[in-house]
C-alpha cells in the first residue's frame, strides 16, 4: 500500500476502500494459495497427491479447500468457545436484550457468499480439467464391472483380462516373483502405459458398481445403461490398488482390482505377449487364466523399478 493514513478526511475514503477490498479478498487469497504455490508444497491431509495428471488437479483443489475449511472452522470454533467460556452465567444480572444488528448480519451473509463463489470458480476449472478427454488417447480400455469382478478389454488388440472376486486372489507372478505388497495386487490387473493417456470406457454388466482408484483421486460409477468415458495419464510406473466403492451385493467388499502402470515400451511388450498367447481370455469363460496371469505385469513393473 502506497498511501499512508495522514488523518486527512480526503485520504480516508481510498484507504477504507482498500482495506474493505483486502477483507473480502482474504478468503479468495486463501483459495488461490494452492495455485500460487504450485501444489507440491501443499499438505496432503492424509489424502493421495494424485498419481495421475487429473488426480493431481483434484488434489490441489482438495488441499486448498481443506486449508480454507480449517481457517473458517477455526474462526467459528474460537467464536463458539469464546462465547461459551466468556459469557458463562456468573450472576443473576439481566443481559441486554438485543436482537438485531443489520450491518453485522449482512456482513456474515456476504462473506460466505464470496468464499463459496471462489470455491465454485476453482471447482469448475478443476472439474473441466479432470473430466476432459483427449481426442487421441494412446490406449483405449473398455472396463466392464460385473457381480463380482472386472473385465478389461483392450480395444482393437484382442486382449482381455478378467478376474472374479469369488476366487482367491493370487498375488504371485507367473515366474514366481511376488507382487509386493500383496495387498496392493488383489483382483485383476488393469495394465496401462505410464506417461501416456489411457482412455477408459466404463460400463456395467448388471448392477451399479464404483470404479475407484484411490491413488488416482478418482471414482466413477459403472452404471447399467450408461457409458462413462474418462482419461488417466499416470505419471509414474507403479502398482495402484483399487476397489469397487458402490455397494453391489454380497461380495462387494471383495471386489478388488489394481492398476499396473508400465513404462510404455514394457506396456507394448506386455500387450504383444498377451496377443501371442494361444487362448485369448476373451473366449475363456473362467477367470483362472486371467487371475494367474495378472501377476505378470506386476512382476515386470517391479523389475523395472
Amino acid at each position, binding site marked *: 500500500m502506497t498511501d499512508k493514513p495522514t488523518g486527512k478526511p480526503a485520504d480516508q475514503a481510498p484507504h477504507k476502500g482498500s482495506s474493505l477490498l483486502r477483507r473480502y479478498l482474504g478468503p479468495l487469497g486463501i483459495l488461490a494459495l494452492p495455485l500460487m504455490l504450485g501444489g507440491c508444497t501443499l499438505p496432503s491431509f492424509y*489424502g*493421495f497427491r494424485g498419481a495421475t495428471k487429473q488426480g493431481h488437479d*483434484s*488434489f490441489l*483443489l*482438495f488441499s486448498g*479447500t481443506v486449508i480454507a*475449511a480449517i481457517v473458517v*472452522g477455526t474462526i467459528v*470454533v474460537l467464536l*463458539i468457545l469464546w*462465547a461459551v467460556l466468556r*459469557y458463562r*452465567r456468573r450472576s*443473576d444480572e*439481566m*443481559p441486554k*436484550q*438485543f*436482537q*438485531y*444488528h*443489520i450491518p*453485522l*448480519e449482512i456482513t*456474515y*451473509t456476504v462473506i*460466505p*457468499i464470496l468464499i*463459496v463463489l471462489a470455491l*465454485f470458480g476453482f*471447482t469448475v476449472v478443476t*472439474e473441466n480439467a*479432470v473430466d476432459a478427454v483427449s481426442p487421441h488417447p494412446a490406449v483405449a480400455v473398455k472396463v466392464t464391472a460385473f457381480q463380482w469382478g472386472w473385465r478389461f478389454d483392450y480395444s482393437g488388440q484382442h486382449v482381455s483380462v478378467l478376474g472374479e472376486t469369488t476366487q482367491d486372489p493370487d498375488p504371485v507372478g507367473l515366474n514366481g516373483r511376488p507382487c509386493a*505388497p*500383496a*495387498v496392493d495386487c488383489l483382483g485383476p490387473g488393469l495394465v496401462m502405459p505410464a506417461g501416456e493417456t489411457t482412455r477408459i470406457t*466404463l460400463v456395467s454388466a*448388471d*448392477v*451399479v458398481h*464404483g470404479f*475407484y482408484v*484411490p491413488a488416482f*483421486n*478418482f*471414482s*466413477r460409477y459403472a*452404471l*447399467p*445403461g*450408461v457409458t462413462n468415458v*474418462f482419461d488417466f495419464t499416470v505419471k509414474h510406473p507403479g502398482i495402484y490398488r483399487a476397489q469397487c*466403492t*458402490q*455397494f453391489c*451385493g*454380497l461380495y*462387494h*467388499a471383495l471386489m478388488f482390482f489394481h492398476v499396473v502402470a508400465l513404462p510404455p515400451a514394457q506396456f507394448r511388450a506386455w500387450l504383444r505377449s498377451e496377443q501371442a498367447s494361444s487362448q485369448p481370455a476373451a473366449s475363456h469363460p473362467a477367470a483362472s487364466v486371467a487371475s494367474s496371469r495378472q501377476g505378470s505385469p506386476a512382476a515386470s513393473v517391479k523389475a523395472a523399478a
Partner: protein
Amino acid sequence: MTLLAEHPAVLHGHPEHHEGPTGVLKWLTSTDHKVIGLSYMITSLVIFFIAGGMAILLRVQLASPHSSLLSLQQYNELFTMHGSLMLYLFAGPFAFGGLANYIIPLQVGAPDMAFPRLNALSYWLYLTGSITMLMGFFTAGGAAAFAWVAYAPLSSAIHSPGAGADLWIVSLLLTGFSAVFTGVNLVTTIFYLRAPGMTMFRLPIFTWNMLVTAILILIAFPVLTAAMVFLFADRHFGTHIFSVKGGGVPVLYQHLFWFFGHPEVYILALPYFGMVTDIIPVFSRKPLFGYKGMVFATMSIAALSTGVWAHHMFTTGVVLLPFFSLMSLLIAVPTGIKFFNWIGTMWRGQIRFDTPMLFCVGFLLAFLMGGLTGVMLASPPIDFLTHDTYFVVAHFHQVLFGTAVFAGFAGFYFWFPKMFGRKLNEPLGKIHFWLMFIGFWVTYLPMYVLGLKGMPRRVATYPSGLGWHLLNQVASLGSYLIAISFLFFLWNIWTSWRHPVAAGANPWDAHTLEWFTSSPPPHHNYLKLPPVRSERPTWDYFHPDARTISHNGRRNGHVKVGAEVGSTGGSDQ
C-alpha cells in the same frame, strides 16, 4: 376468521371432565397430540436403540481386518437396516412425529393438532411400517441387503429376491404416507390454529422450522412413494421402469430417490436446528439474535435443498453440470447465517450450562465440522476422490449424529420436564453428554482419515496391510463409548421414573408459550394464555421489564398490538 370463534372455549379451558380411558386403552385410542407424540417418541427411541445396537455389531466386525464375527450377508443386512431404521424410522419420526407433535400445538397455543384422527392414523401407519421393516429379519432370505438407498437394479427381483426386500419397500410406502399426513397436519395447525396475537413472525423458531419441514415433506415424500411403487411394480408386475432390458432407465431411480433424499436431509436436520434455536436463547437469557434472518435462512435452505439432489450423483457421470455444485455450495450461506445467529445469541448472554445447553454446544461443534466437510463434498472433483468412502460416512454421521442425536437429546432433556412434569437428573445428564461427546469425536475423526486412505463404505471386511486397522480400532472404541453413554441416559430415565422430582410449569425460565401451561399440560393444553406480543410470550409475562430491544433501541412489539392483546384474552383471565 371463523377460527377465532373457537378460541374462547379454549381459553376458558376444559376442566378435567374431558378425561377419556386410561391405561392401555388410552394409548390405543387417544387422538390427543400429546399422547400420540409420546407414542411416536417412545417407538422411535426403541428403534434408535435397535439401530444403535446394530451399529455396535458393525463396529465390532470392522475393528479388525478379515473379521469373521458376521458373515458378508449378515453384515450387508445389518448396515442396510441400521441406515434405514435410523433415517426413515428414527431421525425423522422422532422430530416431526414425536417432539413436533407434542410441542407445536403448545407453542402456537392450540388445543390439539388440526386433524387429531389423521394424526392417530399417522402414528399407527408409522408403527405398522416400522414393524414391517423389522419383520424382514424373520423371512427366509433375511432382511433387505441393498443399503438404505436401494439403488436399482440391485433392488430388482433378480438381484435381491426374497420377501425382506418387499417388506422394506412396503414399509417405506406405509411410513411415507404417515409422514405426508403428519406434514398436512403440521402445516394446517401452524397456519390456522395460532393463538390470538401469535402472528407468523412471533412463532418460535422450532415452529417455523417445523412448518418449513412439513412443506418439504409434502414435496419430497410423494416422490419417494412413487419410486417405491415403481420399484415394487418392477419386482412383481413385470414392468421395466428401472431395468435396461425392457428399455427402462436405472439411473432414473437415483434421480427420483435423491429428489426425495436431499430434501430428506433437511427434513431430518431442520427440526433439530429449530430445537437448538429454541434452547440456546433460554439458557443465554437473551432473545434469539437475528430472528428474522433465521427464518429467511431456513426458507432458503429449504428452497435450495430441492435443487441439489444430483450432488449425490456426481460420480454417475450423467450430471456433471456445475449447476448442482453451485446450488449445493450456496446452502453453506444460510447455514452459516444460522451459526452466527446462534453465536450472536450466546454473545454477552448469561449462559447456564444445564444438560440441554451442553448438548446444544455439542451440536454446534459436531455440525460445524459436518457442515464444512459437506461444503467440500459439494465440489465434484473433491467428491470424485471421497465418494462412497469413509470420508462420506464420517461427514454424514457428523451431520446426522450432530442434529438427530446431539440436538435431538438437547430437545429431549429440555422438554422432558414439560411432558412428564418431572426433572431429569443433572449429573447423570452431564455424564451422558461428556461420554457421548468424547465418543463422537473418537469415532468419526478416524473415519475421515480412513476415507482419504481409500477405504470404501459398506464393506463387510477389509484386508490387512493397508494401514486401516488401527484407525478402525479407534473408531470402534469411540462407538463403544457412545453406547456406554446411553446407559447413563437410560439410568436417568429410570431414576426419574422411580424417584420423581417435580419440575413445575417453567423450570428453565423459558421463552415460548408451552412453558406457560402446567407440566404436563391439561387435556386441551391451556386454561389461560398470556398476551402474545413477541416470540417470547412466557418470558414477556414473567419479565415485563426485560423486553427485547431492536438494534435502534426501540422496544419491539409495543406499537400496534397492545390494545388487541387486551381484548383477545390477556393474562388477567
